[in-house]
């Protein structure tokens, strides 16, 4: 884990200097919130599930924007070879990149979720602690799958196009569950009625953590 944390520290330092990924993620997510607010009618009171859909569209689309960069930045000067030539195990690189994607998502959400409450009504903030739990679990699922797929596409010429094409079919169930659970939260549905969906979201993240951990070595190296 020490090696993974070294890579995380390096990536965060680079992002702190360039402010490339997070700024574009926040800007794009914020823009989506504004556009959808206008489309839905400013000041109109929305159903919980529609509001949840808007929140997750904003979060997931902004997260995809940052996802490709976390690994593709290693392509510059073939830094990925520098990592693979070091004694660090490829699994540690996967863990590091997953953590970086997770952190970037959290930072973007720290801006996007309050902005969502401002645009769509603070009544959706009633169950904030549970919303935070849902968001963190979805982040885990998204970053574990996303890191694996961004490793698959990082070596291709059409990285930016290929990544969403491969990623979205796999994460669609996760997004659907996230909307369902968040919508239930916004509609004040009792916990026991959506708790099973929450467990599936958690399972998604943990299963893909294992899959990514096992497959990353094969994915990141050339044949």
């Amino acid at each position, binding site marked *: 884990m020490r090696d993974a944390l070294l890579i995380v520290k390096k990536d965060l330092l680079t992002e702190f200097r360039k402010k490339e990924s997070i700024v574009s993620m926040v800007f794009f997510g914020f823009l989506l919130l504004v556009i959808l607010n206008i489309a839905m009618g400013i000041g109109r009171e929305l159903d919980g599930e529609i509001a949840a859909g808007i929140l997750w569209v904003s979060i997931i689309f902004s997260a995809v924007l940052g996802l490709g960069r976390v690994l593709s930045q290693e392509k510059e*000067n073939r*830094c990925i070879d520098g990592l693979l*030539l*070091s004694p*660090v195990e490829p699994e540690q690189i996967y863990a590091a990149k997953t953590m970086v994607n997770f952190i970037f998502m959290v930072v973007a959400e720290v801006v996007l979720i309050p902005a969502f409450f401002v645009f769509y009504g603070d009544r959706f903030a009633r169950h904030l602690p549970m919303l935070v739990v849902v968001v963190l679990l979805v982040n885990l699922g998204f970053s574990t799958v996303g890191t694996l797929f961004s490793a698959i596409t990082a070596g291709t010429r059409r990285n930016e196009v290929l990544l969403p094409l491969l990623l979205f079919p796999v994460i669609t169930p996760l997004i659907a569950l996230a909307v369902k659970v968040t919508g239930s939260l916004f509609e004040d549905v009792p916990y026991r009625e959506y708790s099973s969906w929450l467990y599936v979201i958690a399972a998604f993240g943990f299963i893909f953590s294992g899959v990514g951990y096992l497959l990353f070595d094969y994915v990141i190296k*050339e044949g």
Partner: protein
Amino acid sequence: MDRSGFLRIEGLRKSYDGVDALRGIDLELERGDFLSLFGPNGAGKTTLIRIIATLLKPSSGSVRVMDFDMEEHPEEFRARLGVISHQSFLYSDLSARENLEFYAALYGVSDPAAKAEELLGLVGLLDRADSKVSGFSRGMQQRLSIARALVNDPVLLLLDEPYTGLDQSASILLSSHLRRLHGQHRTIVMVTHDLKRGLEAASKVGILARGKLVYLKERGGIDPGEFEHAYLRYLKGVPDV
């Protein structure tokens, strides 16, 4: 110290989608050898370097370095390997010092800051230690790349076209660094197109053509003029070995 069989390659083959990049390489180097390997584009030089470096898996055959178990514990071998390429493996948005400290920490060096300071002095970059790599010339990046490859005090150095993109003075500087590294009894394998500099530095010289090692001799017995003639014949593909 046992000098024999430091690096042993046997029957090494590599195919990409049915195209043979390496067609059975056999090679043995002793500790402290400096092999300059020449060959035309597409001869398989970079493939060979990447297989030795464990970045690529061979289709068949084996590579053995000292007693390292390259299959089960490649990370133990990589901990003592240095690679210098025409790509620097350096992060443009980090300073020279930060790059070296990062790599030193990855290799488990006990005091990364002190190691970075020492290596920056060695390659003459102390005055630019805190400048971002993005502002460095190609020559400065290559000097820093040499420092990066030395953070783990490697026993084997692999050099893949290290002279690419360097001007005359940077090439001279690189050659002097390589002479010094060879003088420290490190084993070096360099693939290059630069006949003059490759011959200057080497203790052994080889030519790789169409995936086969078609020429391998001690540097001492080679006349540069004759070698150039032989190399050009292989470059034109005249001999089919």
